[in-house]
């Protein structure tokens, strides 16, 4: 199924934010917004749900800490207990530093890998830019035609009144 997309290109973040708000008000479907930097306030303007990454990271941190405490206990008290300076085999307080480090390691590596996974970022991925320059100084708002009530001329007019420097229509053959 092909998609009909309308791309409005803007020069600064205020215009982009205004266009996003106007599009949502009129009920247009926002495919995505492309920006050279993380524009603050865009999350609310686009109505994106908050990311669930913190929960994944929290769970991974707990997992790392739990595994490490178990491993330290198993190696030091069960598998081969060695008497070091008369300390108890199960020296839990002495296990805390390494447990903490492993927790941070699991959480941080997990955060980065799940970020790559959720965003589908991997080496060798073919980059799809809506227009040239979104990684330099252009902001792009991409709208999709969803039904027959969608009026291309209205979109064009809306973009122009909101200082779009360029508006283009794109037909994608493959759904993304």
């Amino acid at each position: 199924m092909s998609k009909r997309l309308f791309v409005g290109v803007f020069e600064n973040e205020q215009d982009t934010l205004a266009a996003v708000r106007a599009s949502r008000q009129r009920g247009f479907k926002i495919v995505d917004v492309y920006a050279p930097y993380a524009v603050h306030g865009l999350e609310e303007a686009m109505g994106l749900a908050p990311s669930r990454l913190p929960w994944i990271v929290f769970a991974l941190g707990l997992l790392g800490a739990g595994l490490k405490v178990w491993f330290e206990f198993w190696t030091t008290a069960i598998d081969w207990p060695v008497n070091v300076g008369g300390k108890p085999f199960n020296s839990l307080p002495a296990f805390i530093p390494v447990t903490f480090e492993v927790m941070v390691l699991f959480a941080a590596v997990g955060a980065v890998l799940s970020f790559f996974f959720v965003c589908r970022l991997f080496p060798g991925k073919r980059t799809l830019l809506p227009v040239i320059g979104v990684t330099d100084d252009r902001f792009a708002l991409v709208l999709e035609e969803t039904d027959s009530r969608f009026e291309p001329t209205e979109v064009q007019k809306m973009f122009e009144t909101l200082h779009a420097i360029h508006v283009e229509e794109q037909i994608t053959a493959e759904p993304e």
Partner: protein
Amino acid sequence: MADAVLTLRPPLIDGDKSIAQVTHDVCAPMEARPSGLWWLALAASSSLLLLGALAIGYQIAVGVGTWGLNRTIGWAFDITNFVFWIGIGHAGTLISAVLFLFRQRWRTSVNRAAEAMTIFAVMCAGIFPIIHTGRPWFAYWLFPYPNTRGSLWVNFRSPLVWDCFAISTYFTVSAMFWFIGLLPDLATIRDRATAKWRRRLAGILSLGWNGSYRGWQRYEVVYLLLAGLGTPLVISVHTIVSWDFATSVLPGWHATLFPPYFVAGAIFSGMSMVLTLMIIARKLMRLEDYITLRHIDRMAKLVILTSCIVGLSYATEFFIALYSGSSYEQFVFLNRAMGPMFWAYWTMVSCNLLIPQLLWFRRIRAYVPAVFVISIFVNIGMWFERFVIIVTSLSRDFLPSNWFHYAPTRIEIATLMGSFGLFFTLFLLFCRFVPVIAVAEVKGVLKYGISHEEGDS
């Protein structure tokens, strides 16, 4: 409207740049040919690196007898250099993670280079414990892995094992943090590259980043999470480094003060190294509009703050020695200040405590050469701090019959110089091939202090 203008803070970036100008200013030097000065600096630093590599090769081939260590002083130069370099690394994490959590948006101009400094400093630090093992080809024994000796596991009660975990976690997390921050900039390089190899290389490394806001939203979350993890991590790393000493019973090492004292000292030394590097980089690469005098001013204030914490720690150590009533403790501190190595102690006090006090004066903070010279003094002073703590405490312990002195050999000095060579070689290569300023982050703060509409949070 007039008072609205008055309440604006000064802008973070000078020169009223447009977004495209930022991209150009940072990326263009990388695309041009390197200057003669850069080649000269690279030749000097890589010669030092070569010297260090030869020294390391020699001491591994001949053995640990090439060091000036003896039965009394079994730890001296290696551990001093290790703590010195790890400490330097900590300022990078402070700037990238702690200041991010405190919403200090001026950090955007310096965080990329400071994080690179962290990674390089940790690499330099890592060399020393590895060669200090005496048989570096068995360095992997530091990790618990199933082996044919039992399995015989590492001793998880040992601070040296904690250190091994702390440093490797710290290196991994810092490198990932740096790469995540670099991702949008790599995409920028990819999209403006004219050279085919640059486009391909940046294309692979940027993982297909296209500036989609759904990506940006998660990016911000991951960045915040890494900052939140990095902050306790950096404190834990130097705390654990200090435990290498504090968990022993030696007078002068066995102190509960050590963790905060070492963490403050680490940030102190690292911040002055950031100043040293940034002052050179802003001049050489003409980044005065990005790394402004206001940035230098703020970093200089952090140097005074940490200098005072370090000074307070010096005083506390003396007070506790007196207050404890332990004659061994009292002797160690008198010996530090008035013993045979008094010159090292007083170098440390003057470089770390007295000279940085000049930074209280606004005119000195605004005069870049003065700040540069002070930052060099702090680097020297912080190296001596570790040397004093380690060598003076070890050389005169409980029994006078144990007492001995220590002097580094030429091989040890060559190894230290080699670590500087490695650090500066990597930093020069970084300046050449990676955007020194976090382009995407600076774009977000361009309007800071210029309009109230955004950025001024």
